[in-house]
């Protein structure tokens, strides 16, 4: 369906658009963000101005942007997909070339009023481009090798750039998100099975040849992989952080140690306690009930997104919502698995809760797209 086929008249116009916003989703997003404010207030030792207040301001700005995007028709955003992808790609190349010298820290680009990580924006741009691609592509061609190769290249290009930064967490997320959109678009499962099998064989090959004359990697590279996979092998480095995180997590028990009573975070035993490891503080202070409730909130957000995607008969809208939901899922899944010691530490924030601007900004933009698709769906 091209945008000419939208029955424009049935779409709400003007202020009435706000009636069609998915308010449940807005409330859920605000609820999750509030959990973040509460935790940031607690970690700062009961001070608002350290982390909670800037985070609130950013969230408010994000809300405004979300609504601004929501009232713009979804077909406009679909047409912007290519521009967004190319623009973000240029930014990625720019930080690769100038980020180091010009702006001090790599990965960041200074927009004057705020700093953004182009790799975060790429998560959204990639989802939009792939959704637009499958919206444009003849459905019958979806699984043909040549037409599968195109999105694969679209995914791999930014993945390689981000990997060079180096940012393993974000590149894995880009890869998974892209694959999810392709899967949702109906690409034959055989491709996924074959890729998974090949990947598995490659990993197995790397490990089985270890300690033989034919080993693929150097010994020190194997050692690095060892500590990455099993941080307890390096108890003073990476292992120390993950052990402290598990202690914080576990010591919460059923109901937690109480608001602002978490000793692990208050006494600085927790690393990155206000960013990547904020979930452990929640688990420590509010226990199983607290962290499980957060997981339920996240699942509710996913649920509302999926329902909205399934109700939407516009292909671009469905795919973009599924892609954004996938990004969101990978955010919290990787983060929680990481702090619980089930996944290697790769530096992925807890979405909407961790202190930080880029991922928050990107997520609010993404939810704006979701809302736009929801408001302007075929009725």
């Amino acid at each position, binding site marked *: *369906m*091209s945008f000419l086929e939208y029955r424009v008249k049935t779409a709400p116009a003007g202020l009435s658009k706000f009636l069609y916003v998915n308010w449940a989703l807005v409330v859920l997003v605000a609820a999750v963000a509030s959990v973040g404010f509460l935790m940031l207030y607690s970690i700062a030792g009961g001070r608002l101005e350290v982390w909670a207040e800037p985070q609130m301001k950013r969230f408010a700005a994000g809300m405004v942007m979300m609504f601004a995007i929501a009232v713009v028709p979804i077909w406009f955003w679909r047409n912007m997909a290519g521009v967004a992808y190319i623009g973000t790609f240029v930014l990625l190349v720019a930080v690769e070339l100038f980020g180091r010298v010009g702006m001090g820290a790599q990965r960041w680009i200074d927009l004057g009023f705020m700093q953004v990580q182009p790799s975060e924006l790429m998560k959204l741009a990639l989802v939009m481009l792939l959704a637009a691609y499958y919206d*444009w592509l*003849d*459905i*019958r061609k979806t699984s043909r090798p040549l037409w599968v190769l195109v999105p694969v290249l679209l995914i791999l290009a930014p993945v390689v750039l981000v990997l060079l930064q180096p940012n393993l967490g974000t590149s894995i997320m880009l890869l998974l998100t892209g694959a*999810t959109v392709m*899967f*949702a*678009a*109906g690409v034959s499962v055989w491709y996924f099975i074959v890729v998974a099998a090949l990947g598995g064989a490659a990993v197995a090959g790397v490990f089985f040849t270890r300690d033989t004359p034919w080993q693929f990697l150097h010994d020190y590279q194997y050692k690095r992989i060892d500590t990455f996979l099993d941080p307890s092998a390096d108890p003073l480095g990476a292992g120390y952080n993950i052990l*402290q995180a*598990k*202690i*914080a*997590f*576990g*010591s*919460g*028990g*059923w109901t937690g140690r109480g608001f602002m009573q978490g*000793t*692990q975070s208050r*006494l*600085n*035993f927790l690393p990155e306690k206000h960013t990547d490891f904020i979930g452990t503080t929640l*688990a*420590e202070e509010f*226990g*199983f009930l607290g*962290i*499980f409730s957060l*997981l339920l909130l996240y*699942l509710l957000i*996913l*649920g509302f997104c*999926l329902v909205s*995607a*399934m109700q939407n*008969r516009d*292909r671009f809208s*469905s*795919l973009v919502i*599924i892609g954004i939901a*996938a990004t969101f*899922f990978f955010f919290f*899944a990787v983060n*929680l*698995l990481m702090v*619980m010691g*089930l996944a290697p530490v790769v530096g992925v924030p807890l979405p909407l809760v961790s202190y930080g601007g880029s991922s928050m900004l990107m997520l609010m933009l993404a939810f704006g797209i979701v809302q736009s698709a929801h408001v302007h769906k075929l009725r």
Partner: protein
Amino acid sequence: MRRSSRDSEDAARAVNRRALLLGGAVLALSAVMGARMRYLQVDRAEEYRLLAEDNRVSIRLIPPARGRILDPNGKLIADNEQNYRVVISREDAPDPVDVLHRLGRVIPISEADFAAALAEAGKRSPQPILVADRLPWEDVSRIALNAPALPGVLPEVGLSRVYPRDTDFAHVVGYVGAVSDRDLQELEEPDPLLRTPQFQIGKIGVERWMEDALRGSAGHRRVEVNVTGRVMRDLDRKEGTPGRDLRLTIDADVQNYVQTRLGNDSAACVVMNVNTGDLKAVCSAPSFDPNLFVRGISHTDYNALMENDHRPLADKSVQGAYPPGSTFKMMTAMAALSAGVVNPAHSVRCSGYLEIGGRRFHCWKRAGHGTVSLERALTESCDVYFYDVAMKVGIDRIAEVGRRFGLGARHDLPMSAIAEGIMPDKAWKLARHKAEWRIGDTVNAAIGQGYVLTSPLQLAVMAARLATGKAVVPRLVHAIGDEEQPVAPAADLGFDPAHLAAVREGMSSVMNSGRGTAHASRIVDETMLMAGKTGTSQVRNITTAERARGVISNDQLPWESRDHALFVGFAPVDAPRYAVSVVVEHGGGGSLAAAPIARDAILRAMSDGLPPLSAYPASQRPRIETQHEEMPLRPPEGGPPVLIRA
């Protein structure tokens, strides 16, 4: 691009199918996460709660104040003083090296300290960096004044040991020092206190051997710490028990007088109470300042002490073992008398030598003494008399008597490396040298030469036992805390009082008869008359060549080849109170070098202040007065030594 609505319906259904699959996958992974949460927070909650507690709570020891050491009158010998040191806390100092440089402009830091702190600052460790120790108060206030410019710089206060009577008690009391790895290895279960930073333990002397009483036990406080180990707040605290104060038997003023009297001679002097065994003074000269060791002695100072041929670090009073020379003659006499081989009236003819087995054993007086009785033999220290009776009684009985008087046995005092000495007999020589005992060995031993070795402490005990006839045991610790240490009643030695009286008679004549070898060092005050015996012990063999050239005067020999001068004695003669022994290494003759010191020391012990001039023979009084004036003594209230009439 156009497509049929049928196609789009199919596509939408396909997307929905896949979306449901994805939703299923999400739920499955979420179930894994939920299960993991439950596992960590419910199943293993207890374990992690304990680990969190372990992180949070740290148990800090509170070091107890070390017990002080005092003299019987409560004068301080070892004390604790507040010690300011400055550390840099890494947590508050973003750049410790920079802070260190800035600190160096505020207070003077020695080059060595600065280098050590710089090395410490380069390490990654949560411990604070110690910059300087024993800061004067002005430096502490200067740091406080500049606090804003010195982030993380903290003055800390602790207790450290100080010896206000520095050189006087260096050998007796010893000193404390940092706990070494060897100290820890020597203990089976070291007190955790020993591992606390800056903790000091007794290294030698009373400080070491009374360590258990002095140390006390640590208190502890439970504190909440953050990840860098900084204390956030106290949870609870339990005070420890401070170490117990020790009162020594040694009188600080007598000790100071005797130590000053020994001066820079390489000498030792022991004064003890003959009835209780209480040691009044135990001195070894030259001495050193134990405070240097507490603060960490510099290489220069240490090398100077090590290279000094008078060996200031050695405690000659209890560690030194010297041939007793003629001071041993009382033992030979007591052995001969108690064995019944001679009676007090027995006489021997001295012709200047005694020929035994074709070898001549000379008397110190070449011309000979003529006919000598026991009294005269002691008074004039006739060697031939003792050669003769020793051959009659035999070495084994002499050794047995010597041991009863405390020779060849280690007196148990809380001091370091107490010498056992040697009281040789036939079995000893067989075991030690794998050789038969020869008659010449007996002759040598009879006058305290040859194998016999004794420490000044043993000689003082011997004198005390001669004076009382009782097995007096030396005692150094008067009281631990409030508990006075009991004085064991001395058992009778079991000698015939008549024999003891005869020997004491001889010892009295040594000083009070005009022919006595120590007549010049007599006490004239009737109430304090002194008895004693001089001794001169050879430290080398006189070669035949030297003998051929004639007797060489001691003064012509290099210092380290000269004879040791010895003296033992007690006073007052009628009712003895104190015994004394003096050894002056390479001092020459006992009557000239040792006896005057022994008289001064025993007089000082019997008086409240300086020895009264009236106790000295009139002709010596002006000289003694000058001697008093030139002695830099410590004022009774403590402090640095001063000249009394300066």
